[in-house]
């Protein structure tokens, strides 16, 4: 360090100044320059030592009698004491100034790091996403070799971010930062860790392991771990401050995240309650209407006072029959909805021929609902779709029943075509009154009913289309609604094509023998 050479240099300069030809009477203030230099570099203690050394050197080297500490001329005493006094004062002032400047620089760095940490925590999408950035930041701001952050999950500590790779050291002894509330400074305390060593990493006696606990309130939420060579000693004041403040920030973020999760859970529970109310309302209404028709018809049949014609009796029985059918559909949809929501739907996907799938459902539903025939059109070269035959049946039946309810006696059309991406689109559309543009996005929401005039008692339960979406999504497909060119509503179901059948036709496949599931390229012998 150049500062160590300042006193000898000053001595030489003074010798030159006081000697011929300059013969300056007293060049001792040159020592003050050296004292200031030492003060700036080494601080107060060194500055005082330098001032005393300068006093002794000047006395010994330049004051007669030379090379002794004696002083002949009493006036020289005053000079020497002034040199000593001014040296000490200037030295201390300079050292203090330097320390302040240093401190300011450090604090600026520290607050920059803290600002980055808190900004990372607030701008990241989740705390988990922010932690790796924070760990890297801490590594850059401290002289640690590796820093990792763990989170307490019950009794286990899970590492959630790590600046390095490979096995982490886990010495039995590590140093813990203990912080006490109030003005007590944080201290590093050695602690024996009663835990087993993780993995097969041998303890490295050359490295020190440091832990700063992340906590909120009295609850330990995790820890910031750091390691570096034992020779580097304990983290200094700034490193300690940075680690503890970072631990506080992360602790607050953990806490906040926990509160948000709790609040979300409460909100979900509240919405669940609201949904339950809507369900009860819908169900009681949806069930009461057909039940009322059934009781009215049955009551009439049971009335001994009324004489019924055969035709009237049949009519009453038909009412009971069709209303019971309606109840059955409601129950089916409710069960589906609860299975969808409970995640209990296990579609068994297989390759299905669209035409063979759609035609029977269309025929069955139109017959049951006594609707005019549905137009069906399939594009050529339609690949088989990958779907569950049962679920697809229900999806299509729901859509056709929906069209029959809201667009009775209007043209209904079912078309299937291949999309540009190879998926298959099946569209059910009608020429009925349609759905207002604003209602389209909510159409598949549970219990959503398009506001309509004069719908009255025949309104649906509002879950049919919700079930459609649930079932289609369970099969890996998508569903959407738009305005149909026919004038009514168009619902599009998009499903994946079935994968190519395994095994190419061998051509020589033995007729009738169990073999590869190939395309039927082979011909049956006639």
């Amino acid at each position, binding site marked *: 360090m150049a500062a160590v050479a300042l006193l000898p240099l000053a001595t030489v300069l003074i010798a030159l100044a006081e000697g011929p030809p300059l013969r300056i009477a007293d060049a001792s203030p040159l020592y003050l320059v050296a004292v200031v230099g030492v003060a700036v570099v080494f601080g107060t203690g060194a500055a005082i030592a330098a001032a005393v050394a300068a006093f002794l050197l000047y006395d010994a080297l330049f004051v007669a009698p030379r090379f002794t500490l004696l002083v002949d001329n009493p006036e020289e005493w005053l000079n020497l004491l002034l040199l000593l006094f001014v040296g000490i004062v200037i030295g201390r002032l300079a050292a203090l100034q330097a320390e302040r400047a240093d401190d300011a620089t450090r604090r600026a760095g520290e607050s920059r790091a803290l600002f980055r940490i808190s900004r990372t925590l607030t701008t990241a999408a989740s705390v988990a996403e922010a932690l790796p950035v924070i760990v890297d930041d801490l590594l850059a701001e401290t002289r640690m070799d590796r820093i990792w952050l763990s989170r307490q999950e019950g009794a286990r500590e899970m590492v959630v971010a790590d600046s390095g790779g490979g096995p982490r050291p886990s010495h039995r002894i590590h140093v813990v930062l203990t912080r006490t509330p109030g003005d007590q400074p944080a201290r590093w305390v050695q602690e024996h860790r009663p835990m087993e060593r993780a993995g097969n990493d041998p303890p490295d006696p050359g490295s020190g392991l440091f832990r700063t606990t992340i906590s909120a309130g009295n609850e330990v939420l995790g820890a910031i771990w750091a390691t570096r060579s034992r020779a580097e000693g304990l983290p200094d004041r700034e490193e300690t401050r940075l680690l503890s403040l970072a631990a506080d920030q992360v602790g607050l973020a953990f806490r906040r995240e926990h509160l948000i999760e709790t609040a979300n859970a409460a909100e979900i529970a509240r919405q669940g309650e609201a949904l339950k109310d809507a369900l009860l309302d819908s169900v009681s209404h949806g069930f009461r209407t057909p039940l009322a028709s059934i009781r009215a018809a049955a009551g009439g049949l049971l009335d001994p006072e009324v004489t019924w014609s055969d035709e009237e009796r049949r009519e009453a029985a038909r009412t009971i029959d069709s209303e019971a059918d309606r109840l059955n559909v409601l129950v089916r949809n409710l069960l589906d909805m609860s299975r969808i929501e409970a995640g209990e739907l296990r579609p068994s996907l297989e*390759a299905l021929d669209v035409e063979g799938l759609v035609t029977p459902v269309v025929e069955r539903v139109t017959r049951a609902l006594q609707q005019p025939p549905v137009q069906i059109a399939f594009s050529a070269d339609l690949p088989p779709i990958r779907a569950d035959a049962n679920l697809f049946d229900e999806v299509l039946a729901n859509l056709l029943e929906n069209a029959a309810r809201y667009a009775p006696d209007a043209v209904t059309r079912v078309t299937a075509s291949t999309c540009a991406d190879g998926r298959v689109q099946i569209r059910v559309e009608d020429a009925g009154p349609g759905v207002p543009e604003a209602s389209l996005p909510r159409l598949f929401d549970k219990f959503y009913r398009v506001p309509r005039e004069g719908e009255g008692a025949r309104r649906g339960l509002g879950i049919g289309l919700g079930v459609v979406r649930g079932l289609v999504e369970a099969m890996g497909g998508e569903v959407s609604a738009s305005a149909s060119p026919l004038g009514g509503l168009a619902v599009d179901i998009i499903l994946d094509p079935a994968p190519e059948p395994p095994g190419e036709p061998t051509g020589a496949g033995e007729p009738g023998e169990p073999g590869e599931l190939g395309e039927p390229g*082979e011909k049956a012998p006639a």
Partner: protein
Amino acid sequence: MSAGGPGGGPGSPATPTGPRVLLVEDDDSTRTSIASNLEAHGYRVREAGTAAAAVRAWDTQRPDLVVLDLGLPDADGTTVIRRVRRDGTTPILILSARDDEPDKVAALELGADDYVTKPFGLEELRARVAALLRRAAGPAADTTGSIVLGPLVLDVTRRAVLVGATPVDLTPREYELLKVLMSQPGRLVTRGTLLRAVWGRQYVEEDHYLHVYVSRLRRKLAAADPTGTVRDLITAEPGIGYRIREP
């Protein structure tokens, strides 16, 4: 009402010589309405509310057909299927709740012939009962000669299929599929059974193309038939299996 009891409606007295049906159902009101309806249509119905009673009735009476609810209070309905199948080929019609798909398939693979899903209409039930009895009464499928279903003829010896006089060009697997279905007309054949019979055991659990083959087969048959009679002959029960109806 039990076997030999008075018939349902006036004007349709029970025929003492009608087919004997064993009706196994634990719900009293369901069982009573089915029984009285079948009796009104000339069947002789023996009722049982438990699996044990069903097995006793089977042992003593040997009915012509069994209508069986799978959910019985004392034992699984499949124990009744096993018992009946041990003794013979008497048709079994399953009554099943809607969400019982795996149970239906299991019952069919154990030997049940068909099912109706609750809630069902009595008309539909009677149609299934009649179809099963018709099949049981007919000659057993002759796999050495020809199987004839209306205009549809499958010539086993020549491995040829005709609709009327028009030959239908089928691939080996389409032919096998049709043969399996035609050799048990009216019976619901599960997907597993078809896959085992046509493709071999190893394909039963795989993602398969059965539906595609059946659809193709239907189209080929329909194309060869200008009258439209065979078009709807093969029907699918989604998720369960396929059957070929008697025209």
